[in-house]
């Protein structure tokens, strides 16, 4: 009897192999579809450009590619570096200001209420405001974009830190106190690691936002950087160049986010992969 049953049910090894094969198959199909999507998009673009007929109105992909190559050969890295430095500087300022503010908001109900309105409004203000404000205050300068980036990211960092402070594990604090750990030790070993993931969440959330606002501010008040280049070519009505710069902007922003942020997150929070709900 048991022999008959054993024949009917497939061997566990065979089952696993079949599952793996089908998973690989569907993954392959997915990659193909994504690739097809991209190819389709480029073809559509090409067709549209051919229909419009004018490289000045809707440049074709090869034209844009040519433009991109030119930019990369010239001073792309110069401009890109200028933009990155501003965004990073603004981010650091956002963290430096936002973290203590978040602590304050998280630990005191009064300050949480007091600061909530300005923080929320700061998060809803259209980027244009920051860009022009920065321009008015700093003129054409490095500091304008820095200020704009820090102002727009700071609310995200503050709100996330406030959340993180609420989530500090009381049990771990009690344990530290029972073992006679000093307040400094508790802060360094319990509070900071608890809040760090939230700071990071604030950073990740506001990363692309900061990048956009920073670039917009460059559009207004900068003599360098990707935003400036886009505006310059807009004023020159150089459509292929505008599109080329925009594409480069997108590609590098996505690359930065995937490569640096995601990697940093994985390293900082290595310990999390084994945490499962108890």
């Amino acid at each position: 009897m048991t022999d008959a049953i054993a024949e009917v049910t497939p061997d566990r090894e065979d089952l696993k192999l079949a599952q793996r094969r089908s998973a690989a198959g569907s993954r392959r199909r997915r990659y193909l579809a994504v690739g097809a999507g991209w190819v389709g998009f480029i073809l559509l673009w090409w067709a549209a450009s051919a229909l419009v007929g004018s490289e000045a109105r809707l440049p074709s992909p090869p034209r844009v590619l040519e433009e991109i190559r030119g930019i990369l050969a010239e001073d792309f890295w110069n401009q890109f570096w200028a933009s990155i430095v501003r965004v990073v500087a603004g981010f650091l300022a956002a963290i430096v200001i936002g973290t203590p503010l978040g602590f304050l908001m998280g630990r005191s109900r009064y300050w949480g209420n007091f600061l909530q309105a300005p923080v929320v409004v700061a998060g809803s203000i259209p980027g244009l405001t920051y860009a022009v404000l920065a321009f008015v205050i700093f003129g054409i300068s490095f500091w304008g974009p820095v200020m704009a980036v820090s102002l727009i990211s700071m609310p995200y960092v503050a709100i996330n830190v406030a959340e993180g402070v609420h989530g500090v594990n009381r049990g771990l604090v009690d344990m530290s106190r029972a073992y006679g750990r000093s307040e400094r030790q508790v802060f360094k070993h319990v509070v900071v690691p608890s809040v760090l993931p939230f700071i990071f969440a604030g950073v990740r959330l506001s990363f692309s936002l900061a990048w956009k606002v920073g670039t917009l501010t460059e559009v207004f008040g900068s003599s360098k950087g990707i935003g400036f280049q886009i505006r310059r070519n807009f004023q020159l009505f150089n459509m292929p160049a505008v599109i080329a710069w925009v594409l480069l902007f997108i590609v590098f922003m996505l690359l930065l986010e995937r490569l640096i942020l995601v990697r940093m997150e994985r390293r900082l929070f290595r310990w999390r992969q084994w945490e499962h709900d108890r």
Partner: protein
Amino acid sequence: MARVDIQNLKKVFPAPQKGGDPVVAIEDISLEVDGNVFVSVVGPSGCGKSTLLNILSGVETPSGGTVSVKEGDRPARLGYVFQDARLLPWRTVMDNMLYVRDDDGKTAQSSAERYLEMVGLNHTGEMFPGQLSGGMQQRVGIARAFSVEPDLLLMDEPFSHLDAITARSLRDHLQVLWTATRKTVLFVTHDVVEAVQLSDRIIVLAPGGRIFDDIAIGLEHPRRAADPKVATLQAEILGRFEEMHPSGTANLENLV
């Protein structure tokens, strides 16, 4: 070897809701613990045993009476094992062991390793708590408590969150550690059977925070759970519990 001296301890918590009565967690407890003994504090929920530990460790302050926990003239150094392991999840096991110590360097590390070995976890130093099972994490918690070489070791129902098999294994690990180091231990539990297996003395608290009974256990250490002498004693003491706190099962015979 610590000396614990509690005189007329009283602890009252403010009423949880407006207009309610304040909660008397501990009404009156006087007790002295002296020497390298393993003392269990047993009682049902609401008898104040966890509150007692919190007061001893300094997390709570008494509402009345005096509490003195000393090693000779100085305040005693404490070790604490909680119901949950309370390991820092973002630090390795070894870092967790070192966190509670005041020394550092090679000596600290080798000492920590020694204690991990005593609970059979000497290969886990570089792992994160998340990679360990609940029982293993608790073992680290126990090793951690012993490793600071405390004068007084407080344990708050450390095995109550574990399954019976793991708990039994951990009791054996605990006995290994204790017979090797002979610390003063104050062990809170709701499980009388466990208390009889582990302790030299059982203090029974009644609901409301009063001492109901103080039982001395004369068997030698370590004690195997399956040992008939231990089992007989457990049955006898359980019987005394029935008298104090008759549960519904006292009437089982009438039902049959």
